[in-house]
């Protein structure tokens, strides 16, 4: 038998499984969004477009499937005789793929949304600039998961560059997936008490991520920080986000490199 790398098989399989989940997820969000549009038409309240609307939920969703990655897939693949390394590479590639897929679908749906609203001439105003409305309606204690990165991000709010929005969206949800995977791996290896430490670190990662996008931090745990936001040029934010994702993935690899498989 010759030496074979299995990570591409793992990547393709995990991508398809998670894409299937994601399509379900997106269809729920789309339904909710359509209902909100109808409500909005009747009440006259402003509403964010789909890319804006779905962003917060997508992050929560990615956090959850990231956590599942360790528990559901690591045991499963080692059981099939796949090394932890191949699992790690495959799962990382699949996560990147899923993040792009969700971002692309969300962007396309948003484009479609604008076209339909344009054509039907419905009396509704969509924009991504209703920062205040959204933040007021959100509870600060859980706001780290709400679409602040996009709400407060000057780039997405004022940018009409779709491609840029899409990449931001991708990096944002990918970094949250990585955070979820990090928490899941920590629990998997160290059990639930040490797992809390991983949640603490995860929150730190999320705060750093928000800072990178120039978001005002309103999440109460970070009140001790001497600043509430930092200004980075656009490419700096992108680069920073990619580096942050790389660092989190590095941690995950260290945690899972020689981990004992749960039976």
């Amino acid at each position, binding site marked *: *038998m010759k030496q074979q790398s*299995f990570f591409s098989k793992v990547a393709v399989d995990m991508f398809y499984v998670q894409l299937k989940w994601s399509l379900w997820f997106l269809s729920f969000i789309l339904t909710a969004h359509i209902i909100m549009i109808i409500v909005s038409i009747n009440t006259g309240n402003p509403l964010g477009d789909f890319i804006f609307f779905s962003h917060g939920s997508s992050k929560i969703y990615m956090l959850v499937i990231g956590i599942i990655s360790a528990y559901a897939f690591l045991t499963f693949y080692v059981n*099939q*005789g796949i090394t932890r390394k*191949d699992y790690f590479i495959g799962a990382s590639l699949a996560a990147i793929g899923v993040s792009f897929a969700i971002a692309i679908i969300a962007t396309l749906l948003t484009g479609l949304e604008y076209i339909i609203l344009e054509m039907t001439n419905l009396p509704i105003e969509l924009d991504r600039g209703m920062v205040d409305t959204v933040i007021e309606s959100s509870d600060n204690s859980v706001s780290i998961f709400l679409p602040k990165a996009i709400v407060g991000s000057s780039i997405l709010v004022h940018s009409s560059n779709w491609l840029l929005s899409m990449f931001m969206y991708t990096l944002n949800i990918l970094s949250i997936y990585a955070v979820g995977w990090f928490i899941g791996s920590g629990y998997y290896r160290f059990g639930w008490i040490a797992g809390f430490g991983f949640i603490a670190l995860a929150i730190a990662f999320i705060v750093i991520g928000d800072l990178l996008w120039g978001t005002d931090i309103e999440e109460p745990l970070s009140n001790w920080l001497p600043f509430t936001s930092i200004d980075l040029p656009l490419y700096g934010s992108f680069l920073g986000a990619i580096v942050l994702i790389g660092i989190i993935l590095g941690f995950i690899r260290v945690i899972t490199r*020689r981990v*004992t498989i749960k*039976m």
Partner: protein
Amino acid sequence: MNIDINNLSLKYKDFEALKNISFKLESGKIYGLLGRNGAGKTSLLSILASFREQTDGSLTIDGESPFENARIMQSVAFIYEKDYSDETEKVKGMLEVIERYRPNFDKEYANYLIKRFKLPLDKPVHKLSKGMQSALNVTLGLAGRTPITIFDEAYLGMDAPTREIFYKELLDDQAKHPRTMILSTHLVSEMDYLFDEVIVINQGSLVLHEEYETLASRGASITGSADKVDDFIIGMKQLNVQQLGNTKSVMVYGDLNENERQDAQLKGLEVGPISLQDLFIHLTSEED
């Protein structure tokens, strides 16, 4: 693929699950791994399957350490009772996964086993009965045809007739496609005929590793009047003594040569075989 285990130890914090275990397994044989609950069977097998690393000593398969070794890991299948309560995949889907990741998988044979065990292809795995889940595990393990296949008490949940099917199919397929099979069990009496060799571990230590045939001829039960039996067994290793009135029955471990057998007959003693089950019980129950 030969397995070579040398001074293998595994410690969990203060507890020594495996203590300096050494033995060799040749390919193409069926090995019975016997031990009581908590003896270290699963610990040993999970190192073999690269689920965990040993604390000390070495374990090599085909000369290489299996841990994170893609070539070796691909050749080892570890079948144990999995928790399927969240497994929504259908039986069919499980077969497809094995087909994708196990190069020797035989689809026809898998379908044959599915029929043999009467498993429903379109039912989600978590809805199968415990016995059916075990049968599915066994099907995946056999049809994967991995050079090293480990069944860790894989029969749990199966009823007796289903277990019989498993044993029969295992022997049939082993005859056609020899590989290294390791069957860990404490159902010794009904599985002993499957084993080419037997390994007994107790409290983390290797107790014995022998060919089954040798082992079966290794011991004997000597029955007769108490004084004659006592006289006869001087110098032999006694496993168990039972006495009823003046009649005594002693299980001895060790070869009886022809002279001894004749001697026993002359003294009017009855020499009977002992079962692996008896041997197992007596080898592992001493230190309670």
